[in-house]
């Protein structure tokens, strides 16, 4: 079993700023990220900002584990981490959950057809791989980011229509999406984007049986926390999984959480 002072779950901008702070404080840290790139959603919006944090991480103190997911977490601070082939067991003194958020999907008939994308999936395709699924698009949803419109225009994708989700009746098409039926008529496009904001990625906190509070405004569950610590001792939260914020606020959140963890470990195990 591997031993660490701190395990950071989630290599988004919060997790990266936390890792930088942890390497400044010389804590033995493991950063677990399920994708193969660091930076989370921020890398679609500001790649340089992400790289500035990656460069500051001191590899003497921080171990990076890409392409691995946390498959089990227990309240005695033992984690099991796997990528499908190998299996790592870790005993740690504290956990920082910075899993962030995922894109919300809208429920309507045939919403599982190919060529219906979430807005982050499309941004990933365009920004990281320079691939577009078609030349004209319909957008459905309430929260449409300026960045999405700008990216679509820059990559020569024509926006046929932006549709309110209350008008939407169903999507149609055999094998692949072809168009949608709304209360105002039928519209056709190459592909459809669903852009309806995010939900917090709180499965790990659910696994730990954390106390959660329902937020009426965001219509989702957030953990109760006092000075970044949840109701479970040694488990801390920061970033969008705690409450929705912008990237700069998340960076501040990540580094302050690590300072709180440092103080907590000092009180628990004697000053370092």
């Amino acid at each position, binding site marked *: 079993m591997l031993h660490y002072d701190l395990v950071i779950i989630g290599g988004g901008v919060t997790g990266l700023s936390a890792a930088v702070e942890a390497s400044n404080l010389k804590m033995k840290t493991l950063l677990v990220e*399920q*994708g*193969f*790139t660091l930076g989370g959603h921020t890398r679609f919006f500001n790649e340089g900002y992400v790289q500035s944090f990656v460069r500051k991480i001191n590899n003497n103190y921080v171990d990076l584990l890409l*392409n691995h997911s946390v498959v089990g977490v227990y309240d005695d601070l033992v984690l099991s981490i796997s990528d499908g082939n190998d299996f790592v067991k870790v005993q740690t003194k504290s956990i920082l959950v910075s899993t962030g958020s*995922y*894109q919300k*999907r809208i429920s309507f008939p045939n919403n*599982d*057809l*190919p*060529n*219906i*994308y*979430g807005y*982050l*999936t499309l941004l*990933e*395709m*365009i920004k*990281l*791989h*320079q*691939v*577009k*699924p*078609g030349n004209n698009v319909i957008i459905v949803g309430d929260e449409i980011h300026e960045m999405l419109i700008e990216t679509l225009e*820059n*990559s*020569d994708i024509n926006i046929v229509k932006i549709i309110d989700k209350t008008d939407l009746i169903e999507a149609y098409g055999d*094998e*692949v*999406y072809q168009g949608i039926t709304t209360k105002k008529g039928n519209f056709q496009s190459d592909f459809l984007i669903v852009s309806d904001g995010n939900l917090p*990625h709180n499965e790990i906190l659910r696994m730990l049986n954390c106390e959660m509070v329902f937020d009426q405004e965001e219509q989702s569950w957030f953990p109760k926390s006092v000075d970044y610590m949840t109701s479970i001792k040694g488990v801390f939260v920061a970033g969008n999984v705690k409450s929705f914020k912008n990237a700069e606020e998340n960076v501040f959140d990540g580094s302050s959480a690590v300072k709180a963890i440092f103080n907590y470990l000092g009180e628990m195990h004697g000053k370092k």
Partner: protein
Amino acid sequence: MRIKRQGIFVFPQKQINFTFEGKNLSGIKTDTIASALLANGIFVFSYSRKTNRPQGYTCSTDFCTGSCLMTVNGVNNVQTCKTLLKQDMKIERNRGPKHVTL
């Protein structure tokens, strides 16, 4: 299809050849399997086990819905969104057992 950016210099990318369902296709060096398939106009990634409905690439590296799982070089259920494309990969749709509707 690939995006052509006007006025921005794009580095010439190394071409990588692979086969999908027996067809010869090509992608570039930084591609994942999923992005190479989308660039070649392949949108149906799998068929659902119970209802046999076509499924596309929906979740990216977000909250996994398992729709991009494919058979790569004979290994079933490979997450194509997370696997980088390599030379001479043999990619196929999963042909696992389906639920039988009575």
